């Protein structure tokens, strides 16, 4: 690289990193300082975390629970579907994939509105957490399907299955013995993506939630609007603590899945 080109590249990389990192550090600090506007001089405290925990612990648990439920549902729906799509990579499969990927292209607000329009009157459903769950599954399902599908597409599934069949295994055995174990890296990467995205989902949840069912990001939006900066920051800090380890693991898992599909 000419030195100039390299300098531009390094500068852009460092600037972008700073742009993404600095506010998160600010936020972490803000959540831990007694008074953000007086700065660190005012001392460090866990008081704000405690306040947030008291106010919003339930939303944290709700988000965790929702994300696990979402994972379960996307596994049940997504893994068999990804298997079919990987086995029959034709036009219909593409159309199907295109269709279930619509929630990535249609704004969450619109989807939520659509769900409310159709199911808003089913009261028990509408006020239960499963209603939010549906939104989360809609949004995360394509990630599970693609993640599993790309790993399956890379492992010559057809031949493996033919080998199993030639050894006497019927379709169900093949699925259990060959397909699922070999899709595991994709399933793992997909699972982490699903959990992470579900915990962070706001656009759909904002419209779907009821006051009893505030998820973590909805609580965050509340706190940004009406809580003091330190509390909002402390809340953000709790969000980071939950999401960052997941993200790190997710990146590790997708890198692994990607290595397999190369």
């Amino acid at each position: 690289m000419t030195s100039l080109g390299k300098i531009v590249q390094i500068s852009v990389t460092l600037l972008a990193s700073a742009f993404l990192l600095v506010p998160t550090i600010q936020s972490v600090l803000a959540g831990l300082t007694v008074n953000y506007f007086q700065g660190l001089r005012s001392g460090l405290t866990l008081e704000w975390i405690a306040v947030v925990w008291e106010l919003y612990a339930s939303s944290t648990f709700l988000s965790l629970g929702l994300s696990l439920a979402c994972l379960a549902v996307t596994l049940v729906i997504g893994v068999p579907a990804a298997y079919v799509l990987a086995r029959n990579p034709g036009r219909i499969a593409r159309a199907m994939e295109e269709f279930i990927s619509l929630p990535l292209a249609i704004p969450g607000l619109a989807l939520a509105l659509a769900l409310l329009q159709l199911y808003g009157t089913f009261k028990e459903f509408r006020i239960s957490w499963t209603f939010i769950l549906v939104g989360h599954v809609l949004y995360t399902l394509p990630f599970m399907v693609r993640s599993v599908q790309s790993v399956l597409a890379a492992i010559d599934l057809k031949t493996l299955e033919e080998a199993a069949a030639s050894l006497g295994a019927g379709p169900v055995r093949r699925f259990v013995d060959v397909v699922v174990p070999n899709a595991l890296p994709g399933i793992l990467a997909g699972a982490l993506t699903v959990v992470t995205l579900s915990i962070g989902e706001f656009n759909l949840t904002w419209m779907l939630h009821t006051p009893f069912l505030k998820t973590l990001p909805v609580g965050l939006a509340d706190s940004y609007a009406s809580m003091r900066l330190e509390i909002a920051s402390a809340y953000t800090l709790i969000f980071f603590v939950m999401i960052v380890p997941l993200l790190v693991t997710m990146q590790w898992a997708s890198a692994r899945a990607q290595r397999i599909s190369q």
Partner: protein
Amino acid sequence: MSSRQFLALCLVPLTVFSLAFLALPLVRLVLASGEGNAGWGVYLQILQTPRYTATLVQTVLVSTLVTVAALAVSTTAGLYLARNRFRGRAVLLSILTLPLAFPGVVVGFMIILLGGRQGLFNQILPGHMIFAYSTLGLFLGYLYFSIPRVLLTVMAAIEKIDPSLEEAARTLGASPYRVMRDVLIPQLAPALVAAGAIAFATAMGAFGTAFTLATNIDVLPMVIYTEFTLSANIAMAAALSVMLGFATWTILFLARSFSGAGVAAGG
């Protein structure tokens, strides 16, 4: 059970779910858009109302700008990170991809911390550096959540380029700049289109960031929200949603057909 039957069975959960919770609600949404006072004329009304059309244009404009900027930043950084090994590379990579799952509201908050009245910039240069609530703030917020997803797609694509292509160009006398121009960028084109499409779609639908920034700049998702909360104009909100969804999907679809590749999932 025959293989055929088993495969069909495997599709049942997906089919049931996406029919019940995607296809039918979308149909209902479209129908709802025609149930207002204006009937199906609501779409004409949108096209004739400058506020809506201006917002649509503005939303597309901001999204396009963000897409271009995110592509430029992420491709530059991605090329550097993919082609160089140095200490701290993993850390930079993590920093640049971690915000992947930050909800829009958090991103808005990050921008306020940077460019708000109490933000970092205004603390360093008091009185001059408040940009969180301007178009610039919104732009930066969108850029914030676009960089990671574009970067991931672009880097995955760079890793797949055969390094011997670059070496071949160099043995033929190409300077590093020419290598980039003649070999890398053309190779990356499909990935750039795909990543751009993702960034564009996300920006088009972004709500949380605008919501948190509380700017006076209208983007379509905010308008939809306002329609919904302004005397519950559900038909208009639905119609605008349909338009936004359709516009975004169309652009994504075109990008996907153009790039020939599945638009990679950014997260």
